[in-house]
């Protein structure tokens, strides 16, 4: 059989690829298009993959669609940056604004498993206060979630992904021990540690979703550092090798290379299924509920593209907020060279971290926080960075590349504030499926700039203290995408409620990075997965009470009475 993941769907005829065995297959349940399934999920990444697993395990019938291919990492991934661009979402998009985003490799994936297939595995919890940042810290927007409840869901995800982390975590309220031990530090991580110790702040080993000991058929990490181009050993605990196999085992169907173009709404104003493109044709899958989990650009795009006469501004958009408040995270860096060899690309790229400026509130001239981590750019990316961000070309570029083994760097993941002007709208151009493409508008606000300034100054001092020379600053880089369908307590000021259920259409849900009201200063995937686990629990509870068909506006009572979020976290 011709078996090319990029061009021919693999999950069909009762089987799906076995990600743990080259050429292997596992059985997969299939549903007919005209058979209304309990849940259609659009996207199989951190949000969709997790939710598909949990809902299937709770006994719901689930079909999860992904526009991307279904890879077997052991045989499909090469240690080659150019080859692995096949993991990125590189469909046409238009970017503008004062600080246009660079889309693709550093923020969106297109594969079963979503962006987690090539993410950097950093798995952090929010600072508790961030769930009420408006009330407690005076900026952004409050979440409708209680941090204590989230603390338990974080634990569930950490266990499910066998996160390898430090024995004790220096910041925030106590958390259970990470299921696997931290990885050994590489020289780049030790440089971060040295800098922190010199400046008198805490650092620790980064909690990572890659295993430091065997787990089932997944091999432990081999420290070759190809993580952000896809892990070919299965050490990386992406959705592809964790939630998705569980989902299949529980009876979910995955449809790969299946692009959902439109959500159908029936005469009652409820969604009734999705139109999707697979095998050169459009099909319609009937469903009782639809969950959108396409990440913060594709999610609003699909909602907007599904506009009808009844919902002229797109689905779930009575608040007018679909697509608005797009937030990325600042990802600026300070680079230098060390006298000794560093070989920063050995091992996962961010083995050490400090969250000092996420938890310290004094000494800041900005709202929000940032973490910074050690770095390990692969050679092609590094050459690109030197050419674009450092402006080197020709002889000087070649000369600089000779220092590659001595390069050391620190990079932030910084909180950017939600602004309605940063947003996703529809352009008039269409893509290969004939769907209107997204226009992504982004501008930093003054607070974002102050945060970046602060971090660059601080990291420069830290890197110097670690002994690095010839420092230079990478001023413009961003990572992660959030917002665009925020959750909240009020239908007027949010798109979904705490259960990820749209206020407008009770059987339409959004469960991915789009629902974040704020982003905090940590990488988002752990929070996305925790929210998905919570959503699944809520859906099960509502189904048991027979509330799934009732309006979100009536059934959104919190499950626990604890909304006083941030007491006793300091």
């Amino acid at each position, binding site marked *: 059989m011709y078996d090319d993941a990029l061009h021919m769907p693999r999950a069909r005829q009762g089987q799906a690829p076995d990600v743990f065995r080259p050429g292997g297959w596992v059985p997969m349940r299939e549903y007919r298009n005209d058979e209304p399934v309990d849940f259609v999920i659009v996207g199989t990444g951190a949000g969709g993959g997790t939710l598909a697993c949990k809902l299937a395990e709770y006994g719901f019938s689930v079909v999860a669609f992904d526009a991307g291919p279904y890879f077997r990492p052991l045989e499909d991934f090469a240690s080659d940056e150019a080859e692995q661009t096949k993991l990125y979402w590189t469909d046409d998009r238009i970017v503008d604004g004062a600080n246009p985003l660079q889309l693709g490799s550093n923020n969106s994936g297109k594969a079963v498993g979503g962006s987690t297939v090539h993410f950097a595995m950093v798995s952090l919890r929010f600072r508790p206060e961030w769930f009420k940042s408006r009330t407690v810290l005076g900026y952004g927007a409050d979440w409708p979630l209680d941090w204590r409840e989230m603390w338990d869901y974080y634990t569930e995800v950490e266990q499910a992904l*066998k996160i390898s982390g*430090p*024995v004790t975590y220096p910041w925030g309220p106590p958390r259970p021990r990470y*299921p*696997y*031990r*931290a990885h*050994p*530090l590489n020289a780049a991580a*030790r440089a971060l*540690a*040295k800098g922190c*110790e010199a400046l008198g702040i805490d650092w620790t*080993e980064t909690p990572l979703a890659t295993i*430091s*000991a*065997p*787990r089932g058929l997944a*091999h*432990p990490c*081999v420290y070759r550092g190809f993580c952000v181009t896809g892990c070919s*050993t299965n*050490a990386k605990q992406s959705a592809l090798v964790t939630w998705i196999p569980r989902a299949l085992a529980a009876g979910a169907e995955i449809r790969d290379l299946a692009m959902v173009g439109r959500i159908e709404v029936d005469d009652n104003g409820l969604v009734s299924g999705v139109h999707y493109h697979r095998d050169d044709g459009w099909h319609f899958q009937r469903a009782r509920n639809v969950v959108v989990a396409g990440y913060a650009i594709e999610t609003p795009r699909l909602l907007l593209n599904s506009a009808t006469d009844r919902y002229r501004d797109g689905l779930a958009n009575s608040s007018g907020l679909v697509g608005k408040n797009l937030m990325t995270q600042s990802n600026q860096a300070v680079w230098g060279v060390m006298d000794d060899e560093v070989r920063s690309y050995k091992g996962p790229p961010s083995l050490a971290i400090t969250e000092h400026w996420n938890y310290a509130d004094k000494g800041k001239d900005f709202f929000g926080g940032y973490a910074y981590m050690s770095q390990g750019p692969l050679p092609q990316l590094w050459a690109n960075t030197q050419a674009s961000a450092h402006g080197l070309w020709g002889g000087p570029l070649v000369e600089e590349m000779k220092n590659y083994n001595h390069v050391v760097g620190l990079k932030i993941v910084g909180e950017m504030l939600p602004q309605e002007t940063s947003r996703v709208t529809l352009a008039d151009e269409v893509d290969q499926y004939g769907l209107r493409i997204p226009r992504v508008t982004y501008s930093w606000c003054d607070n974002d700039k102050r945060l970046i300034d602060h971090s660059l100054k601080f990291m420069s001092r830290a890197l110097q203290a670690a002994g690095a020379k010839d420092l230079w600053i990478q001023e413009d880089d961003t990572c992660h995408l959030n917002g665009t369908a925020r959750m909240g307590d009020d239908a007027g000021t949010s798109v979904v409620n705490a259960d990820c259920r749209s206020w407008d259409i009770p059987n339409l849900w959004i469960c991915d990075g789009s629902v974040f009201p704020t982003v905090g200063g940590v990488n988002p995937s752990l929070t996305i997965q925790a929210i998905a686990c919570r959503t699944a629990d809520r859906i099960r509870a509502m189904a048991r009470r027979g509330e799934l068909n009732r309006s979100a506006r009536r059934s959104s009572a919190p499950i626990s009475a604890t909304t006083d979020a941030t007491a006793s976290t300091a």
Partner: protein
Amino acid sequence: MSRAVERDVLAGAGLALSVLAAAAVLAPKAGSSRIRSQRIAALPRSGPQPRTAVRAARRLNGAAGMLAASVLADSSVEHYRGSFKNRAMYTPLVVSALTLATSLHGTSDMRPLAHRLRDGCYLLAAATGLLGTGFHFYNVTKKVGGFSWQNLFYGAPLGAPMAILLSGLLGFCSERVRETARSPRPEMFGLPAARTIAAVTGAGLLGTSGEAGLLHFRGAFHNPFMAVPVTLPPIGAALLFNAAARGQGRAHPFTRAWMWLLTAMGLAGVGFHAYGVSRNMGGWRNWSQNVLNGPPLPAPPSFTGLALAGLAALGLMREHRDA
């Protein structure tokens, strides 16, 4: 030879030697009792129990040899992995090879006399163990983060050089036991030999179990069998301490059985570690990388070495009322 080839050869030789030696230590000694009785008959019989003492001494040589073999193989692999970055990293290979040879010599020596060279060599081994521990301690603390889990897990293993220290100690004990073949009771520095050795071995078991515990904690006890070497040996240690405290002239069948269990556990550990190696990327096909990456194959037999020492002590205790 280039330095790299030299390293390969050295580590390879160390491994081969230790495997051979371990086999020799464990091999049933066919015909040896005949030689023994012949030789012993020729010796002056001044002490009450020369046979018992010499037999116990030879067993201890065997135990010391087993530990030395384990150290030789382990330090060959681990220091090879560390590219013999520091010249001192060759030391444990040389010393454990010497100790091994010495122990083999001891196991086939029937004379009730301590051997000066053996004594010297065992003392050297003990000193190396102490020094090595110092080195490893320095390596751990000088790293950024100092005395932290990270450095305990991934820095030079603090407990590893203890094995050669124990080998030296047991060997040294062996010579003392041998020496007292002609005195009224086997003793060391005025202490009853068997009970002292039982106590030293118990302490060794605890230490080795601690080392296994640390490294298995690093591996998150991902396989339930990883709990075995942190549960059985401490019980063995307690049994040995008990025997040492009030054991004279008793047979201690349960403690003996437990020692045999630990002997087997140490050997089975190699199998488990081999399975652990197979779970790394590429499995045994990629052995040249995974033997270095995976759980150390030669480490578990140090339990066997200690359990053999425990058996020697118990044997002496059974056969000699005041030992």
